[in-house]
């Protein structure tokens, strides 16, 4: 009996492993293995055009003692912070309108409209901003035809909008807006509407009810939106390359430069791991502060 029971458990366990195998294989091959490779490379020596498989921490020392790395990392974090702030601040009213300002039957239609930017590739959207903001772009030509820009206008020369932190921020904020709107929308949708009536019934105005009931209950969505926007924008490669004209590199551009043109893969890996750790630490700090804040609010 005992042997039979054992083999039964074994087959049960085997079934379990078989069930989780596809996602496990996926996770190992596509997430864990590349990360481990980068981590391993960051501890190898660079032998110019080859990689010498010997352990060293020289890459990390080089990364952190390089003032350029620090400037670029701080810039990446600053741009990502700016993008996150702008995106979440603009996404909240839109999500609020979607959740509270629309009849339930119309919500799906509006959400579809919000996803329209995703129907074209990210690269094309970035190019579109280049067309809009460029020297001979949509904005400048419009202002010129209105006579605002020109010899007799308020401004003599067309505006120089590309190749700036502002243009990068604008492009990224536009690209990531739906990522911020949707989690906030979901958390607003989950709020029981009778809670808002209860707030007013207990003597609070609509605005006060919003501050005391709606906003705290929407915080999980705001936190999710913040992380979803912040983490990928720190490592964005395309926008600084195209909108920044390569003149305002961010971390991803630096990594790319080490990996391919300079062919120093160990140093590139060390920069990648370093920025990963910094972003991870910041995300954890943000979650911790948020929890503290929510507790203090009670």
């Amino acid at each position, binding site marked *: 009996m005992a042997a039979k029971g054992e083999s039964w458990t074994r087959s049960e366990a085997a079934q379990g492993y078989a069930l989780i195998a596809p996602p496990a294989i996926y996770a190992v091959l596509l997430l864990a293995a590349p990360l481990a490779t980068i981590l391993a490379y960051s501890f190898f020596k660079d032998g110019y055009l080859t990689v010498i498989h010997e352990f060293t921490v020289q890459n990390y020392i080089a990364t952190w003692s390089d003032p350029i790395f620090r400037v670029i990392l701080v810039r990446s974090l600053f741009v990502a912070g700016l993008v996150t702030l702008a995106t979440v601040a603009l996404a909240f009213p839109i999500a609020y309108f979607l959740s509270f300002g629309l009849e339930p039957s119309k919500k799906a239609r509006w959400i579809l409209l919000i996803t329209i930017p995703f129907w074209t590739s990210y690269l094309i959207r970035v190019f579109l901003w280049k067309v809009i903001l460029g020297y001979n772009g949509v904005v400048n030509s419009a202002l010129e035809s209105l006579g605002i820009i020109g010899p007799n206008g308020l401004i003599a020369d067309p505006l120089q909008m590309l190749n700036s932190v502002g243009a990068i921020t604008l492009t990224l904020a536009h690209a990531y807006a739906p990522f911020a709107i949707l989690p906030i929308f979901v958390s607003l949708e989950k709020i029981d509407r009778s809670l808002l009536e209860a707030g007013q*019934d207990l003597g609070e105005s609509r605005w006060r009810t919003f501050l005391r009931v709606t906003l705290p209950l929407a915080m999980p969505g705001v936190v999710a939106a913040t992380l979803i926007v912040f983490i990928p924008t720190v490592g964005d490669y395309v926008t600084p390359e195209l909108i920044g004209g390569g003149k305002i590199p961010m971390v991803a551009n630096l990594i790319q430069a080490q990996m391919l043109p300079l062919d120093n893969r160990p140093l590139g890996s060390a920069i990648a791991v370093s920025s990963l750790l910094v972003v991870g630490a910041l995300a954890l700090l943000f979650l911790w502060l948020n929890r503290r804040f929510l507790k203090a609010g009670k």
Partner: protein
Amino acid sequence: MTTQPMIAFREVHKYYGDYHALRGITAEIRPGEFFSLLGPSGCGKTTLLRTIAGFEDISSGAVLIDGRDMAGVPANKRPTNMVFQSYAIFPHLSVAQNVGFGLRRDTRSKGEKAKLVEEALEMVGLKGYGARAAHALSGGQRQRVALARALILKPKVLLLDEPLSALDRKIREQMQVELIKLQREVGITFVLVTHDQEEALVMSDRIAVMFEGEIAQLADPETLYRRPNSRRVADFIGVMNFLPATVTGERGDTITAEVAGLGALEVARSQVSLAPAGDQAAVGFRPETLTLLYEGQQAGDREAQGVIDEVVYYGDMTYYDVRLDGMERPVRISMRNVFGRPVLDVGTRTRVAWSPGALVLFR
């Protein structure tokens, strides 16, 4: 009544687009009264309650609270508080913070407010629960928190929107008794919305029965039960047997009606329902106003004969469906079960006694 009503509805109409939800409600609720709005779902009872709270604008007419017209007064400025059907407990706050939610603008010190909260929790039997997270409470506890949160503000009127419908039977019955006690203790006017006729009968001083946006009858529980003014009200509240009748004569205070199987019945004019019941008049009686007669028992006033069609045993009671001789449909009779008296079987021939005073004539 010379005292001013606590709530007065004057010809209140409410339209949702084309839908006429409230059709000219006129009624008064007295101060300190336990008042119920009773009706099937969709009859407008919740809408009417929400016009008091200020969550629903009215299309025409007026709602007065303590003599003051509430037109244009928002919910947060009305002297009412509400216990919501879902309780609407703030999930991000503790029990004490929920109860103290409405005290923000109160000028008293923090310590005094904390004391008020503690007292309110004690009143609803949740002493010492203040620090608990609201989302960890049971249904009955949430209900109590909602009550404490509303009563701590000492409203003129407490509005209760089906507050007991989500609780299981035992807790519901216990909460009914507690609510009655609480209402007597605080002396605040309670307005309860319910679709449960038993709950309304148990708890209320007066009940307004509503159908399709209109008040069909407004009376105390006993009058509603004994003298419903229409077949519809009679049908909604408890069980009532209806027998087709023909009015054959009217003399002074009595009306004579002919009922197949029972013969000519004399009904006091006070027992005649005002609302017409269509072409065919009917005589109605409650199951407990009929009695099965056992061997050797003598009928009080009148008796008829019949055969038991169905027996439903409830422990303390037994319901018998008895087909009386000369009648098409059986009538339902309830009998209290007494020790030593056997429950009769289906098919038994039996005698049934009734008293004419318990009949209601609908014509």
